[in-house]
């Protein structure tokens, strides 16, 4: 390793930063691209129904559609509050 290389490796390379940022972003965008377009609307309506009975937050619910070889799974995750229903 030459002296020049020593100085080069001492600073964080901006190219590797670019690559990291891109990998995260592109993975996220590919995933949301493959989701059906009705999913956000479905999530909103489901949440509204649940909120009629239980006092849950907007962010207490996650919705996820997974595709396996021959079946699709709609996964619904709701964190219920400790308190009793309204």
């Amino acid at each position, binding site marked *: 390793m030459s002296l020049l290389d020593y100085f080069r490796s001492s600073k964080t390379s901006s*190219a590797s930063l*670019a*690559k990291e940022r*891109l990998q995260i972003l592109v993975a996220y965008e590919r995933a949301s691209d493959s989701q059906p377009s009705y999913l956000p609307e479905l999530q909103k309506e489901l949440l509204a129904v649940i909120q009629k009975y239980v006092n849950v937050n907007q962010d207490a619910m996650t919705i996820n559609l997974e595709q396996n070889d021959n079946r699709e799974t709609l996964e619904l995750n709701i964190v219920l509050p400790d308190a009793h229903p309204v």
Partner: protein
Amino acid sequence: MARIIVVTSGKGGVGKTTTSAAISMGLAKKGHKTVVIDFDVGLRNLDLIMGCERRVVYDIINVINGEATLNQALIKDKNCNLLSILPASQTRNKDALTLEGVEKILEELSKDFKYIVCDSPAGIETGAHLAMYFADDAFIVTNPEVSSVRDSDRMLGILSSQSRRAERGEEPIKEYLLLSRYSAERVKSGEMMSLDDVQDILSLHLLGVIPESKSVLTSSNAGTPVILDEKSEAGQAYADIVARYLGENKPHRFIDEKSGFFRKLFGGK
């Protein structure tokens, strides 16, 4: 049957028109009858890069509207008689391009030409959509830069879901990567993403790396496709790309920094 190639990127300014001009000239110089179409209605520039801007009489919109025949609108290239240019309209807006109109033009050109190169406008609007819709092959022009790589990835999604081949469930469009404005020196110093970095994200079939080169600007100043500047690295890179596309086996170059005089002297590579 002609092969339809779309030159696309999503992002603007990465070298789509430079690439369209270069590869269409390259294909024609290899003996294949080729036509290059400018889809950038309202912002045409292919004519300027090809040096035929003063010979434009009719354009693609005139043909679609039946105001001129295809033969009246086609311009024969002055450097190569196997190459023709179909210019975009400069005055009308992009909505003048219609799916049916473009389909008819491509059908007619297919009878006469071996390769049809579609120079896509930037963005994902009508012009870009129609440029890629009928394609068999896609040349994705990407710079080693975050916004360009992201837009290329987005474009790949569109190619695989919104093209005619996708809609008909046919064999998908073949996608090729052309990494342009590459500086091996800046890659080495860690300032620029390398070919491997970009390929880790896009993983496409690489047609070639085009180094950042002064001759791209001087060629466009003069209105001659850069591939005709055989001494320039960019010109050579495009010549390699055309050869590889046609199935020739050319080793990739311009990826690593040129070995300097001193390194050569002392036995480095």
